[in-house]
């Protein structure tokens, strides 16, 4: 079984995010970038399936400028077999990403596609769903458990009320939630091997996709600074403030 995993280059979760002074975007100049944590979980799941003998090949795909090859290499160091970069000038919005991925999937014909449920930069949580719609494939989103048996995928999903288990026909799309697994650390021999694993570069034109502007970024503003707290002298005062100042009760 071939598994295709998508990975996105995002700002490292340890970095304090800053907004550009003209409020046009987040400031990414010389900021540490990393593999999106949900994508890392997706890679881990695929590699585990390979180690368990269920999968035979794990292909990782990333879309973005050349620098996103770093994240492909990271995924290769975690155990994926080969990488595909779809070269774009900037990070594509979700629908464009889904369209590009749909073409790659048509070429690669994987039986399972594992994606992060969302990327921690834009937090959209929609590319997987869009891709499923474009490909008319079954989807199991927010997976906290994944089992593959007799040509079907059993996905336990984290939903508001608790857990829901769905069974999907393959090929299918699964998006990962945090509890699906705990990703490993890359081992030194695998980091060395990753250098030699194949990494193909394609352009949207190669895939016959024309990128369109479906939405426009108007402004980015940082959240308001948290005000310092105050001490209240009594419970009565607390209740009074909650009622009249915070207006929450």
């Amino acid at each position, binding site marked *: 079984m071939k598994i295709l995993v998508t990975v996105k280059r995002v700002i490292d979760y*340890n970095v304090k995010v800053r907004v550009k002074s003209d409020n046009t975007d987040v400031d990414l*100049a*010389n900021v*540490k970038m990393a593999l999106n944590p949900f994508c890392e979980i997706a890679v881990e799941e695929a590699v585990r399936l390979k180690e368990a003998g269920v999968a035979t090949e794990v292909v990782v795909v990333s879309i973005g400028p050349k620098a996103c090859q*770093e994240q492909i*290499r*990271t995924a290769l*160091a975690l155990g994926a077999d080969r990488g595909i970069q779809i070269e774009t000038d900037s990070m594509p919005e979700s629908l464009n990403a889904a369209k590009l991925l749909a073409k790659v999937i048509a070429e690669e014909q994987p039986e399972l596609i594992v994606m992060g449920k969302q990327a921690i930069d834009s937090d959209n949580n929609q590319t997987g769903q869009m891709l499923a719609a474009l490909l008319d494939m079954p989807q199991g989103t927010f997976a906290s458990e994944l089992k593959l048996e007799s040509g079907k995928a059993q996905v336990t999903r984290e939903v508001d009320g608790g857990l829901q288990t769905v069974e999907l026909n393959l090929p299918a799309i699964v998006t990962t939630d945090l509890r699906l697994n705990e990703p490993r*650390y*890359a*081992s*030194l*021999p*695998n*980091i*060395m091997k*990753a*250098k030699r694993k194949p990494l193909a570069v394609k352009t949207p034109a190669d895939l016959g996709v024309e990128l369109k502007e479906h939405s426009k970024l108007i402004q980015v503003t940082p959240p308001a600074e948290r005000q310092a707290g105050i001490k209240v002298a009594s419970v009565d005062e607390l209740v009074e403030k909650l009622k009249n100042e915070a207006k929450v009760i």
Partner: protein
Amino acid sequence: MSTYNPPLQDASFVLDQLIGLDQMCNDLKLDEVNSELASVIVEEAGKLASEVLAPLNSVGDQNGATVSEGAVTETQGFSDAYQQFVENGWATLTGPEEFGGQALPNVLGTAVNELWHSSNMAFALCPMLSQGAVEALIAHGSDELKAQYLPQLISGEWTGTMNLTEPNAGSDLAAVSAKAVPDGEQFRISGQKIFITWGDHQMTSNIVHLVLARLPDAPAGVKGISLFIVPKYLLDEQGQPAAQNDVSCVSLEHKMGIHGSPTCVMSFGDNEGAIGYLVGEANKGLSYMFTMMNHARQSVGLQGLSISERAYQQAVQYSQERFQGSNRDGSKIAIINHPDVRRMLMAMKAGNEAMRALAYSAAADIDRAHHGDAASRSRVELYTPIVKGWMTELAQELTSLNVQVHGGMGFIEETGAAQHYRDARILPIYEGTTGIQALDLIGRKTLFDNGTALKHLQQEIQASVDTLRNSESESLQQLGRKLETALKQACNAGDWILDNAAQDKELMGNVSFDNLMMMGYLTGGWLLAKSAIQAEQLKQTDNAYGAPFLNAKISTAQFFADHYLPRVGQHSETILTGLRHTFALDIDLL
């Protein structure tokens, strides 16, 4: 407790810009290695260091190793972390390929080791000592010993120790008295060794002790000491650990710091004699130790950087969380805004960056020397006592500054600032005290070659002074003037020592420490000035670092030049006095 952020950007700056890793790998024909791979390796190691090892650092401090019936139990959590460390292949980084290593350059090993020691020095001592044992076996072991022990030592499946010190043999290893008696092809070892780091633990299925001992017919003194391998468990026919050897840990020392690292009193041969195997030739043990010394001593110097870096990060964090004083508008002032606190933070940052520049440069010279470069070989000899001596002494000051930034809370164990300070205190002691490093620098490394290696270094510093003074940048010109002053002072003192040491036998010992520290501040200041030149050049181009980092690099070099470079002059002045009054008082007046 304090979190740890691997300083990836500065590490990559030093590797790529100051040392020129790509050029070095080209020159040394290390086709597989380049700066891109190096940065991935350092980054991935940083994840394990900060997420797995760093949280265990205070655990080890509060729950040190314990011993019962000759067996040491390490701090809880260390064993799992060690398995992960080994499974991820980190122990193999610099080992030769034929024994399962990745054969990566020493300078890269150094950059990665910095992270292990910053995150958890007590833990990292264990793989550090294994690396020492590996070096000894590669350089001097027979093919048979290599085949039996190297693969498992390099993979980390077994660990190694260094058993040199005895109650009467510390700095003076010529006094070693442990016995080795031939018994067929092998030897029976008996005697007591003290202060043996990671001498016992339960993390691996075997421990390989390297032991210094004397043969019955050995000449007295330095020329009568041999080196032996004494495994905790003897190997069976298949090379697997089997019967227990006659060696055990009698007790553990109660220490000021590095509580997570068991410091063992080891007893060899309480019964029939521990079985040992001779490494290399008889009576050459001490000279073998010398061949491994550069690497071992540089590793301890590196620990000085590591622990100071961790302390610095903690200080930066705390000084933003602690508020003292108010602005006119009533808002509170974070102490990081007080000039004196800022001075301490800058002193730590500048000191750390100078140490990183020096430690990595010295490590890269070991790589070049290994590939036969003679100039690098003599530079390694000169650098090693400076890396070990100066960096571990500076670490005392910098970890103390972290305590000071914390104020009263620094003195309270809870914050963890005290741990770094206590842990750092061992560094100028083991692997040759500062006194021994200072004598090494002034004697074997300076007087012995009539100052040849020293003069080469001075010339290189002069070349940087010229570059700085001819620069278009006012900041660099200023830096050049300050470095030039310091260089002149150091040259004066160096020449004076070379001119006078032969006639005046007391001189060398009296001024050795000042000479060591003088050379440390000079080299550190020089390497930061060189970094500033690189940073200024990079600023003109499209680069991966960004203006804030590069400007900070230049300002940090300037701070070093203002704050630390004048110490070159002070030490130089002290040297020129000859410290004539050192022995002025009879012992009964002391």
